């Protein structure tokens, strides 16, 4: 079915593409964005590089009306026609494709292996898409990871929970250390569950299998966004999680930034292990109290939680343009070096955001807390008023109902402010 519906990807509106390309420097790389993101498109519109958006049919009309160079493509699955889109982009003169979402990472690998004539890129992208393969690769590369296993059914989960806690020398009656379950190929917190007791295993739906199980790592979790060009880190941002799945801010507190050198070494290991020559990576780590880094996972795409927007707010540079730049095979070292500011010191302040989940089970209206609205750090929010009473369910780590943005000078104040938001009702 999907195959039959796939349009032939030759339908570039020559006028739309031509209009935009005409004003841009033909000596710089021609970028294909894989996936639909208004902020990414806006960034490319204002960047001196030709670009084209590859996205599903629901975006066609908007793209046409707004003169956005566009190719319709359904990213549902890779199949024998997948090469078509690569060939079309190659014919169009595109130099590289940039994945914007988890679902397009593998596509970018496949397309770039054709565009750049480097078949290895497709294999690399599969490492980013399969969390079990990713962990093994990291492990083989000498990176410290937790204990992990794949599970195909609930019995696998029972066994893993028991074995992990056995290893930890727990006695009968001691509370278990939790284990984490994650879907193989989904972004961030989607499908993430924490299991502490055998009873909880019964609640996992069949559709979640197969999945990845990991031991729990006690420590300080944080994320990194690293722009890599020619195998070198060009800019490294540390995003501090206040509470995983709720809040993040950049740049991090001095306490976390103190690990910057150690973190940089870890990222270099990762670059080597995964043989990354260019692009943006978004790994997550735990640092334990003795300073040991544990690798969590790594994504080859922009992070969620609007981290790009936070980085722009803090540093002033456009993170999407930065991404296109480091992907561009025609970008020079000078150009890339000149683009980025100095980490931490180059920031004008700390930008953070908080993801709102309703705290009550039944909510009927948006009641934005006055104390948040009046706080000098508060900048904006994207919460929507409710039309009717809603029963709020939080499945696994779930999806937040909207973000609240803050900006201020003091990282500790920012951290405490974000933490405090967890105690407030945004919907009642």
């Amino acid at each position, binding site marked *: 079915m999907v195959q039959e519906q796939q349009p032939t990807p030759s339908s570039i509106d020559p006028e739309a593409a031509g209009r935009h390309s005409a004003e841009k420097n033909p000596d710089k790389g021609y970028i294909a964005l894989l996936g639909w993101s*208004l*902020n990414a*498109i*806006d*960034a490319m*519109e*204002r960047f001196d590089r030709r670009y084209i958006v590859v996205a599903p049919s629901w975006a066609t009309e908007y793209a046409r009306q*707004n003169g*956005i160079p566009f190719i319709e493509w359904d990213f549902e699955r890779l199949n024998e026609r997948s090469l078509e889109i690569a060939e079309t982009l190659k014919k169009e003169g595109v130099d590289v494709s940039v994945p914007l979402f988890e679902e397009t990472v593998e596509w970018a690998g496949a397309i770039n292996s054709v565009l750049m004539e480097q078949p290895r890129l497709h294999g690399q992208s599969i490492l980013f898409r399969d969390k079990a393969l990713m962990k093994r690769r990291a492990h083989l590369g000498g990176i410290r990871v937790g204990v992990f296993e794949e599970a195909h059914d609930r019995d696998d989960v029972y066994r893993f929970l028991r074995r992990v806690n056995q290893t930890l020398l727990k006695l009968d009656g001691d509370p278990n250390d939790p284990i984490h379950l994650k879907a193989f190929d989904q972004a961030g917190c989607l499908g993430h569950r924490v299991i502490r007791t055998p009873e909880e295993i019964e609640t996992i739906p069949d559709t979640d299998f197969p999945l990845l199980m990991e031991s729990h790592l006690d420590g300080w979790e944080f994320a990194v966004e690293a722009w890599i060009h020619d195998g070198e880190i060009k800019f490294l941002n540390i995003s501090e999680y206040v509470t995983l799945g709720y809040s993040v801010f950049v740049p991090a507190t001095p306490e976390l930034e103190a690990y910057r050198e150690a973190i940089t070494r870890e990222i270099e290991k990762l670059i080597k292990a995964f043989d990354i020559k260019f692009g943006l990576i978004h790994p997550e780590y735990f640092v334990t109290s003795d300073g040991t880094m544990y690798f969590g996972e790594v994504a080859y795409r922009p992070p969620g939680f609007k981290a790009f927007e936070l980085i722009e707010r803090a540093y002033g540079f456009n993170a999407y343009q930065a991404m296109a730049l480091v992907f561009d095979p025609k970008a020079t070292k000078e150009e890339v070096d000149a683009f980025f500011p100095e980490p931490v010191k180059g920031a004008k302040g700390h930008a953070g955001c908080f993801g709102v989940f309703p705290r009550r089970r039944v909510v009927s209206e948006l009641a934005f807390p*006055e104390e948040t*609205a*009046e706080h*000098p750090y*508060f*900048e*904006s*929010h*994207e919460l929507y008023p409710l039309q009717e009473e809603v029963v709020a369910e939080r499945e696994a780590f779930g999806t937040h109902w909207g973000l609240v*943005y803050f*900006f201020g000078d003091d990282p500790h104040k920012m951290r405490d402010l974000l933490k405090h938001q967890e105690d407030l009702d945004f919907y009642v």
Partner: protein
Amino acid sequence: MEYQRLQDASRNEDPELKQARERFEHALESVSRVTPIARAGRLPRLFNATLRLLKLPGGPAIVHGHAGRFDQAGVFEGSDWDHPERLQPELSRGSLTGSADAVAVEALSRLRMLAIAEGTHDHPDLGAAAARDFLQRSLVVNLDLLQADTSEAGRAGKGQREAVRQLLSFELDRLGGASVVEALVAEADRILEQRPIDVSAPRQLLDHVEYLLDREDLPDSEALQRGRQLLAACRGPTRLTRAAAADCLAGFEALSEAEREKELAELGRSVMETGLVCPAHGALLSLLAESGSDRQLSLAMGLDSVGSDSLDAFNELVRALIREAVGPATAQCILGLGNLLDRGTLFFPPVPGSLWRLTRLEPLPEVSAHLREEFGHVDPPSGRSLLLAGVISVLGLPLGVSQGNNPTCQSARAISLWAQVDPGFLLELVMWAARDNEIDLHFEGDLIRSSELTEGLIEDFHTDLDTVSLVLVPHLDKIYWEMGRRIVGRGEDGHRWINPEFHGWWVNRGFATTVDYATGAVVDFAGFVRRFHAAYHPEYNDGAGLIYPQPAGIVATDPFGNYVGLHAIAIQRVEIDDEGVMRVYFYNPNNEGRQDWGGEIVTSTSGHGEMPGESSLPFDQFAARLYVFHFNERELGDPEAVPEEAVESIASAVRESWAAERAWHEVVTS
């Protein structure tokens, strides 16, 4: 100068203001930098930064300093505010009391408007004068938001209200209070000259005038003097009446006879000139009803010769009415009483008896309680006093009845028409409603009792009404609804049968409509217009003047001529004005007689021979919004005498307006 001061201030700016300014500038820059594709995502930060800044002293000036950039930055892109020439001052209230984002975008728009008005920013579609006019008119309808703690307190956040307060205060400073006072006074005057029964709206405008006069010294002007006069009429036009009621009475007793006459004449004149009455005037008239001479009463009410004759003929009744109805709280009904006497209404045989009966009536406790509660006074007079004061007002100012915010134009029109032509019947209905809590009317031989009905047009009764309407409308509305229910299925506009039975035999049975009841199509418009001329236009109906005002239906349209809804009015008379234009004078039960119906059809309420409370339009313009009328079949002229061009010009105005999207069927004659 202004700019200089701004610059100097920024050097040792308050840190909070500095931070808010930087946030605002950064957000504005961020909005202007992106393409329209990503703009929506950047606006919330700008809106929040705007509110932040507005709240701080000196904040509005900073936002205003950037106003020239808003259009270019795309702040209003894709919204109504992108077309400032289409914005309506009356609608700004909704934004200023709405969500935080609505307040912010309205604020940015207004400060841009101010920059246009001051000539520092050019807009292709809006000139400086129009921008200034918008802001002045908008300030007039929003001035209560300028004063601390308003009734909106519950809805909008505290900070948001403060932002609006600072914003409006800044606008007022820049525009100059004098021009706003001028607009307020003009608005109050335009309402007052229609002599409404309920004067709460102009009184509120005058409260704002008082606030502005106290706020700053304004250069003297005609508008300022008129404003002072109107204010004085509310608060006390003479030295005596400005004092507390007890002091006023004592002071009055101490005057010589000549001084008393002078004082009373001045009070009577103030009422007649302004349509407003002060509380002390009520206390004084009560005193005169007990011990004053007829001459004193006549002066105090500003009576003309008919009024004085009425007083002479019904002396005891008038004094009883004053004793029962008039006091400091109900003083406004003195205007109605004076008019009632001047109109000679007491000479209608059933009226004196009905009024005597009402002076003795003790309304049902629930009716009294309702009236007292709605009166909005800490110590309201008795239910009987309130009801009587209301009755006096309606009989004195029959064209001052308003439907308020209710969809009950039919009921309001009925009350007005009865007060004009059948006051005895109206007083009978008031008696029933107040004493029995029901009224009944007949329809095609059946008795319809309001107490047996539950349904009406009113879903949520707005009680901003005169007392008689408060008592009658809930009953009338249900009866009207029931009559409507009984004609369902006849396939014709039910007003044909309902109007004569609902109002009275004097509504003509001849009935014409041009809208097909089932399809909404316009049918035989030419025939309809010809007949309207033959029935109402003195040049085509052999000069047959209108004896009884007649209900009629108009199509209400907005200022762009678009269909809004159907509306009940009454044709009062058709006459030539001073400029030789044939006009239809009509009663509109809507809150406000001045309306812009598009296509240059703007109803007039004064200056074209209107009596207070009447609206008027040139005959052909009126015909272009008419869709239903009643006519006297025995006094119909020749429809074919109406020239083709006159008919065609009205028809084309209709085709361009409310019939634009309707089918149009003319009768073809071969």
